[in-house]
């Protein structure tokens, strides 16, 4: 174990600092609030010669993802970061990146999608590309942003995986809030991420390959099937990589983080920074003798269905908090959890609460209210409810 090195930094700086230590070959990015400080910090590292990374200050997010695809196909370790409209603009190429099996790591600073235009946090951007074939990790705080950015490189580049990874952090709440972050020494990070072993790089002109062929009904399906398998591999290898990371950092990551779950009868499930708030409320309610707990989701894609089933079976009630809506259907996290619980022997009562759209605060009283509803067994599985909304 290394001696602790604490820095007081924002989530954005934590992402940029991790990128600096990873020192990818190529970073292509375009600024958008609240992701902008990541690009700015990183550009400064480049300008000051602190990294040897080649940075491409592209003219749009579409080109950022396109250039990163080109760089990764060429055999380089390539990274980018964006938010909301930026992700929407790159979304065409987001699908191409995963379908070409390129191990790209992208920081996504979660922000509401337009319209109306709003720069604050929700998860509508991440959910828009939920099915794009990217691994999606969600962070509770800046420490997790730092850690998971480093871990993501290993996951993306694992021989059995070769899929891009998106590391989500809540816009402003994490990206602009200063927190103490324990960082690893440069050489420890370097050693952990190691060298990228490119597979079929374009620059190997002695072994020319064709990327992005036309693939009609005779092969497309099989290729999609391989992507589905790659996601399963990602699920399988994640704990091994997390274990290795634990050895260098002392911090343990998993698909999910159970919080005061041992005897919990009423469980909340959530993504991102609100888990911090929920933990506080859980502590408070526990001190009042209430059997509440939290299941925080770190890995949203591939979805950790076995863990969800294992942790939530036979609880009295489960409430799922979503920071995104799915118009005309159930909220995305709720839908996934509910569907996983269809198969368990003893199903809990379930409730869906959407909160925080466009940066609306999630207050402790909202969390408490949802728990109280659960404890009163006053939940209806197919009724979506809202926290902090003026109705």
């Amino acid at each position, binding site marked *: 174990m290394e001696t602790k090195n604490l820095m007081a930094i924002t989530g954005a700086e934590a992402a940029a600092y991790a990128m600096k230590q990873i020192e990818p070959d190529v970073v292509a990015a375009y600024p958008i609030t609240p992701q902008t400080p990541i690009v700015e910090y990183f550009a400064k590292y480049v300008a000051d010669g602190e990294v040897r990374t080649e940075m491409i200050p592209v*003219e749009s997010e579409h080109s950022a993802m396109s250039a990163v695809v080109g760089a990764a196909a060429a055999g380089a370790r390539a990274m980018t970061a964006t938010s909301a409209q930026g992700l929407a603009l790159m979304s065409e190429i987001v699908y191409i990146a995963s379908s070409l099996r390129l191990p790209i790591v992208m920081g996504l600073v979660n922000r509401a999608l337009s319209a109306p235009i709003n720069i604050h946090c929700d998860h509508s951007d991440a959910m828009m590309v939920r099915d794009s074939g990217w691994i999606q990790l969600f962070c509770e705080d800046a420490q997790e942003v730092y850690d998971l950015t480093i871990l993501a490189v290993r996951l993306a580049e694992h021989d059995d995986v070769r899929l891009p990874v998106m590391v989500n952090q809540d816009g402003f709440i994490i990206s602009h809030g200063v927190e103490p972050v324990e960082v690893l020494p440069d050489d420890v990070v370097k050693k952990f991420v190691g060298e990228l072993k490119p597979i079929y790089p374009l620059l190997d002109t002695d072994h020319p390959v064709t990327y992005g062929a036309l693939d009609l009904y005779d092969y497309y399906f099989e290729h999609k099937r391989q992507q589905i398998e790659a996601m399963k591999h990602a699920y399988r290898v994640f704990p091994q990589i997390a274990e290795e990371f634990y050895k260098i950092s002392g911090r343990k990551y998993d698909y999910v983080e159970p919080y005061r779950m041992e005897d919990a009868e009423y469980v909340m499930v959530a993504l991102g920074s609100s888990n911090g708030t929920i933990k506080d409320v859980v502590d408070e309610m526990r001190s009042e003798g209430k059997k509440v707990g939290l299941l925080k989701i770190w890995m949203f894609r591939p979805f950790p269905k076995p863990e969800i089933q294992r942790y939530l079976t036979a609880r009295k009630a489960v409430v799922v908090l979503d920071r995104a809506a799915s118009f005309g259907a159930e909220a995305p996290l709720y839908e996934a959890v509910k569907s996983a619980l269809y198969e368990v022997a003893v199903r809990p009562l379930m409730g869906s609460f959407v909160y925080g759209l466009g940066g609306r605060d999630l207050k402790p009283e909202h969390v408490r209210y949802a728990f109280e509803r659960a404890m009163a067994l006053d939940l209806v599985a197919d009724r979506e409810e809202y926290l902090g909304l003026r109705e």
Partner: protein
Amino acid sequence: MPLTMKKLAEVFTDRETGLTQGHRMCPGCAAPMTVKIVLMVAKALGYEPVIGFATGCMEVSSTIFPFTSWSVPYIHNAFENVAATISGVETAYRALKKAGKIPSDKKYAFIAFGGDGGTYDIGLQALSGALERGHKMLYVLYDNEGYMNTGNQRSGSTPPGADTTTAPVGKAVAGKLQLKKNIVEIVAAHENVYAATVTPGEPMDFINKVEKALQFDGPAFIASLSPCVRFWRIDENKSVDITKLAVQTKYWPLYEVERGVYRVTRKPTSFKPVAEFVKAQGRFRLLLQRPDAEQIINELQNYVDRRWERLLAFEEATKDKPVR
């Protein structure tokens, strides 16, 4: 020493150009000719070509999985982003070279190919961005003046009066009314670029310009008039002839702009009327049946004449005055 046709023929008697046989392009299509000339020049000069291709007719016809007609590294990403994709590839090369992760003795040529749709229209932003950033790449436009992959639609490059499915010549409207967008001027307006027009009908001019473009210290752009025999409705053996006619009628002047300095590279001593170019193709058939056909052709004649005069004036005015 500049390359010659003879030299190229010798080099490629027992060597592949990089684009092998077996692709599914129509017989007579000028796009593969354009691509082959570029690849041959690059290879003959000792470059290792790495190719990016925009979605389009040639892309879909040359890489039908599990086959590929490319024996050089090739990446197709999407329709509008070949310039950005090649930017990434070229940057990766610089990064990996700096880090000592790839052999530094290789002479790479990063070449992007795009159709007119992927260049004049949807891909213009990515192209402009890549030019502005100064990536060492050669962007080659194969200009068949319409969207062929999706079946004969108008593009920003389609000339007035050509019959396309999204701007058809009808009773009320004479097809596309607007002139071709002047892509070379747009490209040349960037700093430190080399931009040129070529056509497979003038191979020596083409070869010289590719050689120059590859050796240019900065981004280079070559626009090749590359007829689509299906859209233009010409015989399969006529695509080369028609491009010669395009040059003789001032429809497609051959010139180059190097850091702002114009040079007209072919100056025919006598010109043919642009009507000859129009009448030689079936895509103007419906236009020619219209009562206002003559007027539209006259306007086109007027335009090509004026543009030619302007080109000569630019040549005179920019002589020895590079922008940097």
